[in-house]
């Protein structure tokens, strides 16, 4: 028996390890399954939202209210951010251009980088933080306090009233906010150029817009509609499908921001690749 003891011990260790391996495999399979289920749920939700968007009785008053909430109430934040982006971009770039004797290219360069990339992406990320988290938290708390259930039992379609209006409002308002941020960014850039130089506003703007072509403007504008739709959709999806406890409101708001920010970056990458091929 004494001779067999090490063999038994090795067998026990092997058994333990096998059990742990099986447990881990099951755990990972369940996690992978949950991830796939979440994706499938997201697609089903998107299908339902799309279907409801084109059905009768559009909630126009709620849509206008959401446009006001999303657009007007985000303006101060976008204004400050837009000006600062333009200002910082100019202050950072000016010395490098100066050393090449190419300061004259500054307005055009800043305008192109703002319109093509910085304006849309930074505005979208700010909107993901403000609008996405707001939608996630609002719908999540409505779910927890049974307000969505109350809508459903009173024969009101909550997808139509709560989700479609928010997704459409975000899809329309985010591009407008991006254009506004671009314009303020160029204004901030002019202010930055005047810290150590002296350029008139008219000259700065004419140089800036002289460098911008249709190909700079249109793809950037198109992608902002997708950014808006993503922010609205993810925010609503996370809020609408939140769990029953109060903790799930925080989780919904947080995951809405994280997921929509990530998707904005991914869509931007795809948009840049497509634009590059044009």
């Amino acid at each position: 028996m004494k001779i067999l003891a090490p063999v038994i011990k090795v067998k026990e260790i092997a058994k333990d390890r096998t059990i742990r391996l099986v447990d881990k495999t099951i755990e990972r399979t369940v996690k992978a399954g949950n991830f796939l289920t979440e994706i499938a749920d997201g697609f089903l939700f998107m299908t339902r939202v799309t279907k409801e968007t084109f059905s009768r009785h559009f909630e126009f008053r709620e849509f206008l209210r959401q446009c006001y909430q999303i657009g007007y109430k985000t303006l101060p934040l976008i204004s400050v951010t837009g000006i600062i982006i333009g200002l910082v971009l100019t202050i950072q770039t000016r010395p490098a251009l100066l050393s090449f004797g190419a300061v004259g290219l500054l307005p055009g360069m800043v305008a192109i980088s703002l319109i093509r990339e910085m304006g849309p992406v930074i505005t979208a990320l700010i909107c993901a933080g403000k609008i996405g988290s707001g939608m996630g938290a609002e719908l999540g708390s409505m779910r927890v306090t049974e307000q969505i259930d109350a809508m459903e039992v009173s024969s009101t379609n909550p997808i139509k009233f709560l989700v479609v209006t928010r997704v459409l409002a975000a899809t329309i308002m985010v591009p407008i906010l991006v254009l506004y941020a671009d314009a303020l960014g160029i204004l901030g850039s002019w202010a930055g150029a005047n810290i150590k130089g002296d350029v008139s506003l008219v000259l700065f703007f004419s140089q800036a817009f002289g460098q911008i072509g249709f190909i700079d403007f249109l793809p950037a504008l198109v992608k902002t509609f997708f950014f808006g739709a993503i922010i609205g959709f993810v925010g609503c999806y996370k809020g609408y499908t939140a769990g029953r406890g109060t903790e799930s409101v925080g989780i919904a708001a947080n995951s809405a921001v994280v997921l929509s920010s990530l998707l904005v970056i991914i869509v931007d990458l795809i948009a840049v690749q497509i634009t590059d091929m044009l």
Partner: protein
Amino acid sequence: MTIPGTPDTASIKAEKREQVIEIASLRKGFGSEDVLTDVSLKVYAGENLVVLGKSGSGKSVLIKCIVRLLEPDEGKITVLGEDVITLDRNRLSELRKKIGFLFQSSALYDSMTVKQNLEFPLRRIKRDLNQKQIGEKVGEVLENVGLSDALNKMPSQLSGGMRKRISLARTLIVDPMIMLYDEPTTGLDPVTSDEISILINDVQKKYKTSSVIITHDIECARTTANRIIMLLNGEVYKEGKTADFEESDDPVIKSFFK
């Protein structure tokens, strides 16, 4: 002539045996745990049926299955002659117009005033009403729940009892045939609980509704019940009149009716 604050029994006798809700062998579980294992019950026109049971006995799950906020796993639910489980979305929506649901948390829309909360279902269910008619209807239901002066208040400005009353007014505004009350007196002081219980009876008399009242508040059950059903371990444990429960020697029932 009925005494104020007591359930109306005359209308039940007159319309005896006319079923408005029939549940047969209902089973509902979450994950591997069955909350309702085998529940069968009937609700007759004009009566107040109280469903009693401990917390977690599946009372709320039961009424959420009736309006299909939760999908049952097995069984049959017939409401006003319609098989709820097989209805498509449009027909279910039509059926829900005839059912009022008072939620445990009141479920008032936070972003709307009391007036907007009341107008919300009315504008969507009775689309032919003009602004004047809507205003009159809002005034009428607010008067019925005794809160005529709360019209322009936000839900956050209301007490628990007031929220319950406004929530009740919101369900009554569309003239439902059936009322489902999910723990109507939970979280309220005894005086306000009594007021809500009396209001439930007044609603039954005035609107001629048939009601299912989910509660573990014995006083509420005593005040409102025409008939009581007790749930235990996911099944109907006992069914009868209030007096049958009061006089029972069963220790489980006695623990409720002390």
